[in-house]
């Protein structure tokens, strides 16, 4: 059962928004500050607690890390007293948290629907913008014991990555994806005493010696190998293009589309034209995709979202607009002012 929609009311930058998701691939585009990461973090928090059975409000605090861990700071800023509401929908189930802007503790939030929600756990992974695997040794124990100022997505991704491989032979789909990735990263991933290595003909290369882009793809290999990304799981990936050479975007999108075809629900946020275009060019019949364009509505300044299933229907498209502007200026220069 996939995440079907989200509704946010006066939460962080959102005034009132409802967004329906594709059960396959969901792509968020929009300028900085349009709420892409916030949306993904809320949905991830909801997915994560379905397994860990943690409190939803507590998880939101850990994932967003408001100053002083005061949950009320997640309410959209306005002068008067107000409350926000966060609702995530999965089939018939609804997980809801609401809290006031004066709230300092997560337990003052009202959470409903958690029992049913946790009765049907869903596996999830959130890959943050910053790569973490090379900093992994010791980080998890440090995070568990001390109040280190890191959003919990950074600790969570390491938990997923450290999972041992699934028993038995991987099925054909997983084998194919892993082989595909092995060719791209030129090796397999090995974990020794909390340290990650890429194993290939040259021996074992520690992750700190690898290009950051390769580490990201290696992480996907691990998550497929250890069975985290299986049918029914949900993958969130914030700006997969970061530190990745554009030549690797194609293979990366192939992997994401293949995961989507195997029943993984994927959410990604991107600023990159090539990522968008690769998705458009590599789509196959039957692929389920939604592009969600987030923007500040000109009339109100509030965040709005336009969802489309078609690349050409993405509007507004801040990425294409940037290209359009460059193109106009280049044509003007090339024509030497005809």
């Amino acid at each position: 059962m996939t995440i079907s929609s989200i509704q946010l009311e006066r939460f962080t930058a959102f005034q009132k928004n409802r967004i329906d998701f594709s059960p396959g691939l969901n792509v968020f585009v929009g300028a900085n500050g349009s709420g892409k990461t916030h949306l993904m973090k809320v949905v991830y928090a909801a997915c994560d607690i379905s397994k860990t059975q943690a409190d939803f409000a507590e998880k939101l605090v850990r994932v967003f890390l408001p100053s002083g861990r005061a949950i009320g700071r997640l309410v959209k800023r306005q002068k008067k007293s107000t409350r926000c509401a966060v609702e995530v929908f999965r089939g018939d189930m609804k997980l809801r948290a609401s809290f006031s802007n004066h709230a300092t503790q997560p337990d003052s939030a009202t959470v409903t629907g958690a029992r049913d929600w946790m009765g049907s756990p869903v596996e999830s992974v959130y890959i943050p913008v910053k790569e973490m695997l090379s900093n992994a040794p010791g980080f998890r124990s440090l995070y568990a014991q001390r109040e280190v100022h890191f959003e919990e997505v950074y600790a969570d991704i390491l938990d997923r990555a450290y999972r041992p491989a699934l028993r038995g032979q991987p099925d054909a789909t997983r084998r194919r994806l892993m082989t595909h990735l092995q060719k791209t990263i030129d090796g397999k991933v090995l974990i020794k005493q909390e340290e990650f290595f890429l194993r290939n003909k040259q021996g074992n290369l520690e992750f700190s010696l690898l290009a950051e882009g390769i580490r990201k793809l290696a992480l996907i290999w691990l998550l497929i190998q250890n069975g985290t990304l299986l049918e029914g799981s949900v993958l969130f990936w914030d700006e997969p293009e970061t530190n990745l050479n554009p030549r690797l975007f194609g293979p990366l999108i192939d992997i994401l589309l293949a995961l989507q075809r195997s029943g993984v629900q994927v959410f990604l946020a991107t600023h990159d034209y090539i990522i968008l275009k690769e998705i458009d060019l590599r789509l196959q019949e039957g692929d389920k995709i939604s592009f969600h364009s987030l923007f500040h509505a000109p009339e109100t300044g509030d965040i709005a979202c336009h969802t489309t299933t078609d690349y050409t229907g993405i509007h507004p498209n801040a990425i294409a607009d940037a290209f359009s502007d460059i193109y106009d200026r280049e044509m003007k220069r090339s024509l030497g002012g005809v």
Partner: protein
Amino acid sequence: MTVLVEGNLQITIPNGATARKFDDNASHGLSHCMKAVDFIVELNNRMLFIELKDPDHPAAAPANRQQFIDGFLGGQIDADLKVKYRDSFLYEWAYERISKPIYYLVLIAASTLGPAELLVRTDELKRQLPLTGPSTAPWPRPFVAGCSVMNLEEWNKQLPELPVSRVTA
């Protein structure tokens, strides 16, 4: 005012400019060994070599349209555009008709091609023609002043005095 027509596309040339169809087999006479751009337009201070491609032609078969787009995105079109320009330049040079800087304008009438794709092809065409000669010792007399690959919308935005339109919708 002159109107140049190529298939389903037409360009209106302003008064005072001279324009001719260049790839006309009968008048060109060397089409067996030299390629040719579609039109040559002469303005006060420059010459325009114009090449039109019309994958969105109303009568184009979808398969041919897609084949063209694939060839465009894959860069196979670059060599054709390059040779057309160079051969046309040589042809005009041999006739001693080049007295002004030449700008090479390529119009691709394809609604599916956006700024990014057209920008990439423009940059590649600049590299392939090429524009300036070796970087260590640039040519004192380059044979092309500039080149642009545009779609209909961009053409009309950048060249309002040379509007292009469809003959039939």
